[in-house]
């Protein structure tokens, strides 16, 4: 019993210490990111490897998610003869929730894990130490551009997922069930508000972007420099950022749509 309490205490202390470390890292990353803004070429390179290479999985997922929403939405709505609202239902689901959350989860799995593994291996192979010895700050040269690129890429990917999802819903709604195209689009136009729905979705995706790149870069930066350490860090990135995205989504939704 005593050892259980001791273990809990030890876990608590190490958790707080790591959280503090992570916050200090975030401050360093933000200052590194600010300084790396002058170096557009590095950011563009990272936008390619973080953003462009994640596009395919985002687009394919968006299409299928939209098609599923179209199917499920239609089956429910047709009971109330409300299939004319299909466009609005699909769009609201995507723009408010599924777009930012799914894109962030996929982003954590595809780009976050890659970032952690890359930085962890740079640490393990002394590349970060070598930069320090060449009087180059890795926070500025390595972490900063990735941080900026992640925050830029995430809302764009979420928007892309939502847009393709809406098309997927249309494909099913119009193609399979014969919902009138004009009705599909106009119900969306009437039901989706720019500030309440789209802007809040964009804010969510920016927050998720910060969470994913923060977790991914931190885990990579402090990873134990062995193959086992890097593999554990990669796993931790996906687990931690996924949980943080889902928990954060609840909080953000409660704040934005709960009238708090």
């Amino acid at each position, binding site marked *: 019993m005593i050892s259980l309490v001791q273990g809990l205490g030890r876990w608590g202390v190490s958790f707080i210490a790591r959280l503090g470390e992570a916050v200090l890292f975030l401050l360093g990353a933000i200052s590194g990111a600010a300084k790396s803004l002058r170096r557009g070429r590095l950011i563009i390179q990272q936008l390619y490897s973080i953003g462009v290479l994640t596009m395919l999985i985002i687009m394919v997922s968006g299409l299928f998610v939209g098609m599923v929403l179209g199917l499920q939405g239609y089956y429910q709505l047709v009971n109330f003869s409300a299939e004319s609202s299909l466009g609005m239902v699909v769009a609201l689901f995507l723009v408010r929730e599924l777009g930012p959350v799914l894109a962030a989860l996929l982003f954590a799995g595809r780009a976050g894990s890659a970032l952690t593994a890359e930085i962890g*291996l*740079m640490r393990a*192979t*002394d*590349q970060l*130490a*070598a*930069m*320090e*010895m*060449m*009087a*180059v700050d890795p926070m500025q*040269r390595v972490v900063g551009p990735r941080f900026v690129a992640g925050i830029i890429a995430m809302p764009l990917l979420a928007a892309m997922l939502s847009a393709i999802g809406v098309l997927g819903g249309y494909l099913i709604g119009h193609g399979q069930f014969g919902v009138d195209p004009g009705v599909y689009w106009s119900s969306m136009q009437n039901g989706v508000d720019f500030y309440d729905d789209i802007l809040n979705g964009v804010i969510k995706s920016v927050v998720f972007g910060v969470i994913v790149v923060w977790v991914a870069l931190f885990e990579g930066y402090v990873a134990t420099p062995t193959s086992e350490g890097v593999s554990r860090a990669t796993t931790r990135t996906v687990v931690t950022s996924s949980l943080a995205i889902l928990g954060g989504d609840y909080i953000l939704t409660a704040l934005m749509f709960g009238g708090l």
Partner: protein
Amino acid sequence: MSQTVSLPHDDSPLVIAENLHFSFSGRPIYSGLNLSIPEGKITVILGPSGCGKSTFLGLLGGRLRPDSGVLKFNGKDIPRSGSGLIAMRRKMGMLFQNSALLTDLNVFENVAFPFREQTDLPEAIIRILVLMKLEMVGLRGARNMMPSELSGGMSRRVSLARAIALDPELVMYDEPFVGLDPVSMGVIVKLISELNDAMGITSVIVTHDVAEGCSIADYVYLLDGGGVAGHGSPEEMMNSDNPGVRQFMQGLPDGPVGFHYPAADYILDLGVEK
């Protein structure tokens, strides 16, 4: 293990460590280390694995902080951070054991990296400087290769070209002879000694390869047990009367460093005695 602080050689020192204490995650690495690195010479720091040889390069490069004691480069304390540390590191080059080439850049860009980060030189000048450095290590023809395509010896030579890119005053070599075939080893030994002579660089080599180290050393330190176990010219070290120094320099399996790691009594451990 205490020592006099007086210089063990006549040359003016570029690096001085006095009564240096350092511990890593609770384990003491140095307890009162005294040594000095003569300017313009090749100093070899020998020692058994795990005695903290590489740690010294970490301290010297400002990547680690000593717990107490004095560590001076060019007569000044190693700065803790900021512009002072950056300015000092510009005068240093380091060759890492695993070469530490940036894996997303090719050979040319790796050597160009210090120029691009630290200078505003135009591209045409950078190209000439990089090709000159690559020519010195004999790899001008490999400029378009990626680090993953290089052999161990080649990547170490590229790393060396990068380390000397900005003409440093001090070059630190961390285990430069490990894992090389005899030919690559010979090339590296030759390069280190040539660079030292041609460019007047002060070299610090951390290694446990006694033969290669002594073949190019002007001065040798042997570290053990948290301090300097012995020092002198290679000849003095080879003929040392100190049994610990002699065991290490000649690679004897038994001596002050026992063959057995401390353990419980053998017979009792096996549990065969009634």
